């Protein structure tokens, strides 16, 4: 006996051991990706998957036949790493799967990106930070007066220039680090401001898709 407990059509595979890990039968862990704002250019996709908590994430992907969610679902289901379907909630569109065995992570549609997270905790005026990506200023926290943070999605090779200034000069920590996408998730410090009493500092780096990046200006992370 099979029962669909959702309000959506489910792709069902029955009695096939090769899809044992990818089967949605009786699975209760839900994975949802909000693809409402997805841009299908180029027509490629990638999903990060690992088959046990002790294994590494692997990339599965390919091409999408058309620039719409149904084509994305068809391409995902052809990978035989689970059963995916589309659910809508108001104006939002989600890719959904249930699985108790396979562990999914990021879904990339179109150009693959990695994240650069920035945090500016120097809430006093005069402690500002600018981030230029490929010579285009994208973050300017001039005299913020409040906590500033955000995430940039960049692609491999992007040049990031970080400039920080405090006025008056004070011992404000400045830290740039990166964490490998694949475990073990040990962060590597790329730059730290160890010069006391400096009024400004800067650091530049090229984005590598195998890492995520963190920029802290102010109170360092725990």
């Amino acid at each position, binding site marked *: 006996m099979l029962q669909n407990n*959702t309000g959506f059509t489910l792709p069902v595979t*029955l009695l096939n051991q090769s899809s044992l890990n990818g089967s*949605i*039968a009786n*699975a209760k862990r*839900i994975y949802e990706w909000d693809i409402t704002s*997805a841009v299908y250019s180029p027509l490629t996709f990638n999903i990060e998957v690992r088959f046990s908590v002790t294994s590494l994430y692997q990339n599965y992907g390919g091409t999408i036949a058309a620039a719409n969610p149904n084509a994305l679902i068809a391409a995902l289901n052809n990978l035989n790493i689970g059963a995916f379907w589309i659910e809508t909630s108001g104006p939002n569109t989600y890719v959904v799967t249930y699985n108790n065995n396979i562990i*999914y992570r*990021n879904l990339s549609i179109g150009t693959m990106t*990695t994240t650069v997270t920035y945090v500016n905790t120097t809430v006093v005026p005069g402690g500002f930070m600018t981030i230029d990506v490929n010579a285009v200023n994208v973050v300017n926290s001039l005299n913020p007066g409040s906590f500033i943070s955000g995430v940039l999605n960049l692609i491999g090779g992007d040049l990031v220039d970080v400039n920080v200034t405090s006025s008056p000069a004070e011992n404000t920590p400045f830290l740039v680090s990166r964490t490998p996408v694949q475990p073990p998730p040990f962060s590597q410090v790329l730059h730290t401001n160890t010069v006391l009493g400096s009024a400004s500092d800067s650091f530049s780096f090229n984005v590598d898709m195998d890492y995520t990046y963190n920029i802290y200006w102010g109170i360092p992370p725990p």
Partner: protein
Amino acid sequence: MTIAPTITNAAQPALSVTTGMPNLSYAAILNSLGAFVWLIDELFYSAGSTSQFSNPVLYKIYDNNGDTSTQQIVTPISPGQFQASMYIETGNMVLDGQTGMSFNLNPGQSVQFIFYGSKKSSSGMLDTYGQVNNYDETIKAMGRLDFFDPANDE
């Protein structure tokens, strides 16, 4: 664009699969395939409503080259049919873990499959005695007693 998933735990699964036997889970049946091979010659298929039958049920099998072959074993019913069920003669439909069925299950719908067939051995048989895929029959056909029968001790 890279999208991180939202991961939650649902109170009930999206797809519930149960067997008709108490204390026997679908996972147990699935894991037993290969050690147990089934030859299905008839299939009873029922659904909550006839609209489910507009979704074909496909049977996928791998040949010796590793290529997949897909057959449609459940066809749409006649528009005039009232009963939401059918008997299907499947021919030599093998369930050995390498084959499987796939279909789309409509929202809120429930379906039931009852398989009619026999258990087969995954090992080869002795053609000399004209038996097929059954150890017990082979032993009897060879005129020998059960290996584990104490009467065989010499």
